[in-house]
Each structure stands twice: as structure tokens, then as C-alpha cells.
């Protein structure tokens, strides 16, 4: 794969040229500073920008356009990375040779129309689409409790003290009421004016041609901002907080949250994925094999590593009576890793798994692109570096990292139904 960067005053264009996939992805990425009040605005803006534009007046027209362009998919995504909020405008379209001549040009014209020609009239988002977008977000907030796992993880993170770690990426219902057609039109402008911008293109493309097309569409619309991203560092332990909610469910969801203290860059990039695989990622992990398989205490148990935030979240589906036993078992499995009581075969398995995941990235265009974005924006290792480093992880490094985990939160969404036959 050929990678080139084209630098301009207000943005850079990164081109990853490959003929392996039959489609092209263009990804315009904004990095803005984390502000809690912008989470809800972003969630609403995503809906506004994907449901209509200045030329496509409603969502039906947008869907029809996508079908007309052979399922060209335009999406807007927000992601939180510690002190940064990413807004990613993605489009994926098939190559001309699999569809029709000129599809690339038409798809890009649609893409920039959706991003830079919003359905704003006289300084306000058009009323009927605004109403539908707001309703859609309201539905999301009202229904989010139905996903018990995500809800439980969000509730556990709310107990953290750090402002940028405690809030759910999709915002809050109480902030939605304040948003209207006018202040959202102002926010749309502000989002671009305050963002650091990179544009990524991946596919079998003619660099000169596509860059000309992109430049033509973005040159007067982007601004120079040097938003500096930094990962979160915890430098001290904190008291363990516990919380419990009850709900009419059969199964309870237990979240055990650990801070990772003073994690180094090498630990973040190289050691953490290996440690997490051994601890709780996948069905050969210590948690799965011992807490689920040997002790039959949970149907589901896994750990999630958030490297930019320095957090490890263990989530499990259990019966309420097993709560203390499961917590003890999780801590016991961690203590064994802290004492170095694990085998070389555990490390080999984790390294193999990691190598496979990284090799597998080559087969998935979004994974290749995601790694490039992560390396450009957050200075994380690129794919080659990641692959090279897998085998260098030592047992001592894994043990040292395990000893940096500090239990900080226990949250339980307790199912208070009796587990009897209906």
C-alpha cells in the first residue's frame, strides 16, 4: 500500500492507495477540544447532517440518493479520546469499474453537499427536518436504558471524578431541550471554525485527480487549529466507589472498573493489548476460563481496555446472588497476574491473538484507515510498528502493568426478578 501526505495551510490530505478493495473511503476528520455541553450538540448535528442537505430536502431524498449512487454510504460519527472529540465524516462508494463511469465524481459531490451545504435557511436549520432529528435523538435517550451492558458501563463511568471520562459520548436528554434551529446552526459553524482537520482517502484512486476534487470542495471552508490531544494519566489511587441500581430483569450486570496508574507509552501501545487478552478479552482469557467455564458464575464476562483513558472495564452478566463471589474471582484472577502466576503459554497465546488481529487489519479497509487515523492524530504506533512490537513484550512487563491496576468502581444493575419458570 502506498501512503502519501499532501500538506496544505489548514489541513492535510492523507492518501492510502490500494487496489485490494473494490471501494473508496473518504474520511474528513475534525478534532475538537472536549466540552461536555458539545456532546449532545454533536449527537443532534449528526442526525441533522445525515437526514437532509441544502439540495436533498428530507431523509427520503437522502436515502434515494444513496441507492442511486449504488449504496454510497455517508455517515457522521463522534468518538471521545480523553480530551478530544472526534467528528468523522465518512463516505464509502464502489469503484467506477464495478458500477458506472463517473460514480466517484458523483459520490464526492454528494459527500461535500452533505457536509458543507447543510439544510440551513436564514441562519436556522430547516424546521421540519430539525423536528425529526430532535425526535430521533429523544427516542435514543429514552431507549438507551434498554441496552443493559452499555447502560451499566456508562453508569459506572459517571462515578469517575475526571470530567472528560465520566460523560457518555452521545450526550444527555436534559441538554437536548436547550437546542434549537438557530443555536445548532451556530454550532455547526463553530465546530468547523475550532477544529483541527485531516482528510483521509483510501482506495484505488488517482491521487492528483481526487486531491484536486477534494481541494476544490474544501479550500475555503476549513480553518487552522492546533488542538493538542493528550492521553489521560492517572497518578494516584482513589477510594473504591460502589453503586447499585435495581431493575426488573432476570440477569444482573456487574461492572468492575480499574484505573491504570502512570501507564507509559510503551505499555499503552504494546503491553496493554497483550495483558488484556490474558486477563479478560475473548474466550481463552483468565476471566472467561475461570469465572465462566470453571465456576459457572457468569454467562458472559470480558474486559475492555481503553488505552487513551487508562481504564480497564470488566463487565459481566451474572445472577445477583453471585455478586461478591464474582468480584472476588475477578480480583483473584488479577492478583495472580500481579504475582506473575501465569504461564509462557498464556503469553504466547495472547501474542498470537494480537498478531492475528493486526494481520487481519490488512483485510479490512476501515481497520487500515482507523490505524492510520490513530497514528496521525494521536501519535499511536502505526500498523507496522504495532506488529513489530508484539513479540517484544515480556512477562515482567505484563506483571508490572497488572500491578498498575487500581480498583476504583463497582457498579451493579441488579435484576430483581426471581429466576423462576414463567
Amino acid at each position: 500500500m502506498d501512503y502519501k501526505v499532501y500538506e496544505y495551510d489548514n489541513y492535510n490530505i492523507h492518501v492510502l492507495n490500494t487496489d485490494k478493495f473494490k471501494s473508496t473511503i473518504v474520511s474528513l476528520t475534525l478534532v475538537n477540544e472536549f466540552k461536555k455541553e458539545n456532546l449532545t450538540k454533536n449527537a443532534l448535528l449528526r442526525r441533522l447532517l445525515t437526514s437532509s442537505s441544502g439540495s436533498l430536502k428530507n431523509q427520503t431524498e437522502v436515502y434515494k440518493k444513496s441507492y442511486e449512487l449504488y449504496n454510497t454510504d455517508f455517515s457522521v460519527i463522534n468518538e471521545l479520546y480523553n480530551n478530544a472529540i472526534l467528528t468523522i465524516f465518512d463516505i464509502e462508494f464502489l469503484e467506477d469499474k464495478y458500477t458506472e463511469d463517473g460514480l466517484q465524481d458523483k459520490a464526492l459531490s454528494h459527500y461535500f453537499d452533505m457536509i458543507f451545504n447543510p439544510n440551513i435557511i436564514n441562519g436556522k436549520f430547516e424546521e421540519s427536518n430539525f423536528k425529526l432529528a430532535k425526535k430521533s435523538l429523544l427516542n435514543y435517550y429514552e431507549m438507551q436504558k434498554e441496552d443493559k451492558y452499555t447502560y451499566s458501563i456508562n453508569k459506572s463511568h459517571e462515578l469517575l471524578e475526571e470530567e472528560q471520562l465520566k460523560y457518555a459520548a452521545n450526550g444527555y436528554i436534559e441538554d437536548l431541550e436547550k437546542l434549537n434551529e438557530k443555536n445548532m446552526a451556530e454550532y455547526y459553524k463553530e465546530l468547523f471554525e475550532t477544529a483541527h482537520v485531516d482528510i483521509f482517502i483510501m482506495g484505488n484512486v488517482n491521487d492528483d485527480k481526487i486531491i484536486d476534487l477534494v481541494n476544490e470542495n474544501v479550500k475555503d471552508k476549513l480553518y487552522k487549529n492546533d488542538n493538542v490531544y493528550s492521553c489521560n494519566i492517572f497518578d494516584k489511587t482513589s477510594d473504591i466507589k460502589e453503586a447499585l441500581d435495581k431493575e426488573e430483569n432476570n440477569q444482573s450486570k456487574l461492572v468492575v472498573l480499574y484505573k491504570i496508574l502512570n501507564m507509559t507509552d510503551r505499555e499503552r501501545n504494546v503491553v496493554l493489548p497483550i495483558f488484556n487478552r490474558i486477563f479478560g478479552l475473548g474466550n481463552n482469557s483468565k476471566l472467561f476460563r475461570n469465572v465462566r467455564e470453571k465456576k459457572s458464575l457468569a454467562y458472559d464476562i470480558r474486559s475492555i481496555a481503553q488505552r487513551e483513558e487508562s481504564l480497564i472495564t470488566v463487565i459481566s452478566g451474572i445472577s445477583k446472588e453471585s455478586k461478591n463471589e464474582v468480584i472476588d474471582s475477578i480480583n483473584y484472577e488479577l492478583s495472580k497476574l500481579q504475582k506473575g502466576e501465569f504461564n509462557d503459554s498464556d503469553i504466547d497465546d495472547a501474542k498470537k491473538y494480537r498478531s492475528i488481529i493486526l494481520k487481519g487489519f490488512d483485510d479490512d479497509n476501515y481497520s487500515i484507515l482507523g490505524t492510520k487515523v490513530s497514528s496521525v492524530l494521536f501519535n499511536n504506533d502505526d500498523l507496522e510498528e504495532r506488529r513489530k512490537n508484539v513479540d517484544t513484550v515480556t512477562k515482567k512487563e505484563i506483571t508490572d502493568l497488572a500491578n498498575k491496576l487500581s480498583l476504583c468502581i463497582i457498579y451493579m444493575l441488579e435484576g430483581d426478578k426471581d429466576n423462576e419458570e414463567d
Partner: protein
Amino acid sequence: MKKIKLEGLDEIVYYEKLDNGLDVYVLKKEKFNYFSAYFVTNYGALINNFVPVNEKEKQKFPDGIAHFLEHKLFEQEKGPSVLEKFSSLGGVCNAFTNYLFTTYFVEGIDNFYENLEFLIDYVQSPYFTDENVEKEKGIIKQEELMTKDNPYRTFYLKSLENLFVNLQYGKSIVGTLNDIDSITKEDLYKCYNTFYNPSNMCLIVVSNQDEEKVINFVKNNQAKKHFDKMDKVKIDKVEEPENVEKEYEVIYDNVSKTQVSVSIKLPFNKFKFDKMKTMLYLRMLFVMNFGSISEFNLKLKQEEIIDANIIVEVTKYDDYVIVSLDALGEDTDKIIKVINEKLNNLSIIEDDFNLIKKSMISNFVYYFTKVDSIMDYLYGNYCNCGKIESDAFMKYKNLSFNELKDEFNNIDFSNKSIVVMKPLEKKE
């Protein structure tokens, strides 16, 4: 060895039926690192009343036994566990059970042949003891409890239950807690011996390896093992009448918003096309009239009758095709009324037909850009048609507006079942 050329797609699937009856399908994807192998038995949660192999009398087994068996095949008599072994080979494995099939799979990058061999070997070497069967019950009960906590699953199963009079779609795949408790080692062996004979199974492989070599490898593996020749398992054909079991029901569950599912039951024999083509035309017709590109859908949202796009699904269940329209909104009487009115007045628009056809065709191109989606396609085709078809893509390409207009213009869509799911707090 037979070559199944996937017409219009520039892809070839190699196929061979081995001496022991195992169907093997192999597709080579040269530039990709990943491999994926699915080992499938034609046995799922719906099949629990049959004459076990080497027996004469029909026996009824507890619900959930196919799924229980899926869990227990991960048990090995000696050596490392299945999970450990795959992990050491760098393979990612899992399994799943649905109403008609149980599927074991491994995916990975390295050690292709070792992973493939172990997939076949572990599925073909059951080891059940009273002790390991008892131990599994706790895990499966947790899974059932988790499933019961999913209101959308309950809603979906209730819709199926109310559509079918004799067919058992809608029952829990995992079984009730009592069913799970009643399963024994002996039951498991009987079901295993009946349905895990290679003549009732198929293997689908997508990898960057030479197709003939893969098939020969499987052939050699199977040649080392003895399997009794088996007749087709005697399973009674369930006669399903055209009417629905229940036309309307309201259920209450742990949800935040009210929703409604309108499901139309249509026998395939009412249509002149084969099952796949019938489903494609029905999908087009309903997407055109109710889906995200329809003016009807937009109007209902603007008038605040529905809160989100209507979801259209067209699914095959034996000799019936079910078209489901799922909508979110508080005034379900109104939603049902407007859907009924629309069902009596469907439009067939050529521009929309062309757009939907473009979208369907491009989905095929996207399928063949990744190993996992290729496998999804091949597996789906096998489950729907009992084999991998060569002309599936051409069926899409040859869809014609006139056929749609001529054959689907005056269909009676009144044979339906409606389920409404409301939040628990609305229960009086």
C-alpha cells in the same frame, strides 16, 4: 470435484460430496489473509421429535437440546480444551444454533490446515459425562435468563409464535429452565449420533488456499474415520395451515417505547416464481411502499404517527414467506390502520424499482470484498436453498419491473398477525 461458477461475480466455488456424504464447499480469495470455515449440521432447535438412529420408536427430546449439544461439543476427553487448542493455533472459534442448523466455526490467519483439522475433529469427537453435562446447565441457564431480558427477542419470538399454527417457530432456542435441567448425557448422544453423521452436514471454507488441496485435505481427514452409512433421518413433515395462530396480541415488557409488528403470512405456492425470486420481488414491493425511500414512511414520521423508520423484513420459513413491518409509535391503533390502508393500495413505481435494484446489486459487490461477508453470503445461500447456487446474482440482475408489476399487483395481504409491545408501566 465440481466447479460452481457464481455467475456475474467472477468467483468460483469448488464443491464435492465426499464418500461419507459430507458436502464440502471451498472458495479461494487470493489476496486476503483471513480464512473462515463453517462446519454445519442440518439440525437445530425445531427438530426434537424424531426416530433416533438405530432405534425404531419416535422420541420427543427436551426443547433446547440442539443448543445444549452445541455447548457440550466444546468438551474434550483429553488434552487441552477446545478453546485453549484453538487459541494455541491462533484460531478464533465459536458456534451458534438456530431453528434449523447448528454451526461451528473457526476464523484466523495462521495455521489454516491445523485449525481446519481441529474444527472437524472436535466436532466429530463428542465427550459427554454426567458431570460435565450438569456443569453446563448453570452456564446455559444464565444464557436463557439473559435472552429473556432482551425484550426485542421476546417480541420477535412472540410474532413468530402467533404466525404459525403447527410449526414451532417462536419457541426458545435455548429451552426453558426446566428443559435445560431435564437434559441428560444419554439424550445428547442420541441426538449427536442421529444428526452429526457427515451425510447430514456441510463444510464451507473461504481462504487463500488452493481449493483442490483443501478438499483433498478434508477427504483424507474423513477417510481416517469410520461413520455408519445412514439413511435420511425420519422427521415428520409438519403440515402448516395458511391461517395465522393469533391475529392480534398485546404484550408488556421492559421497554421504553411502544412498538408494533405487522407480519403477513404468504404461502410460496401462491407465486409463480421460485422462493428466492418471490422474496426479492416482495422485498422490492415493501421497501418501495414502506421502507426508508417511501413517501409513506416520511409522511408518518412528519405526522408523528411513527417515531422511526418502518423496518421491512422478508424471511422464509419452510413453505411460507413472512413479510414483517415493524414500527415504533405510541398510537398503535392508528399505525395499524394506516398500514392496512396502504396494504390495500400499494404502488409499484419504476424509478423506485430501478433504485432498489441498484442497491441490491451493489450489496453483492460489497459482499465479495471481505472474507467474513463472503462467508455470510455463502452460508446464507446454503441455509436458504440447501446448497450454494450459481445463479443467485443473476437472479438479482434479471429482476424486471414488468414481472413485479404483473405478478404482484393484486396480492391479498390480509392474512396477518399483529403483535404490540408496550412498556410494563402501561399495564393496567
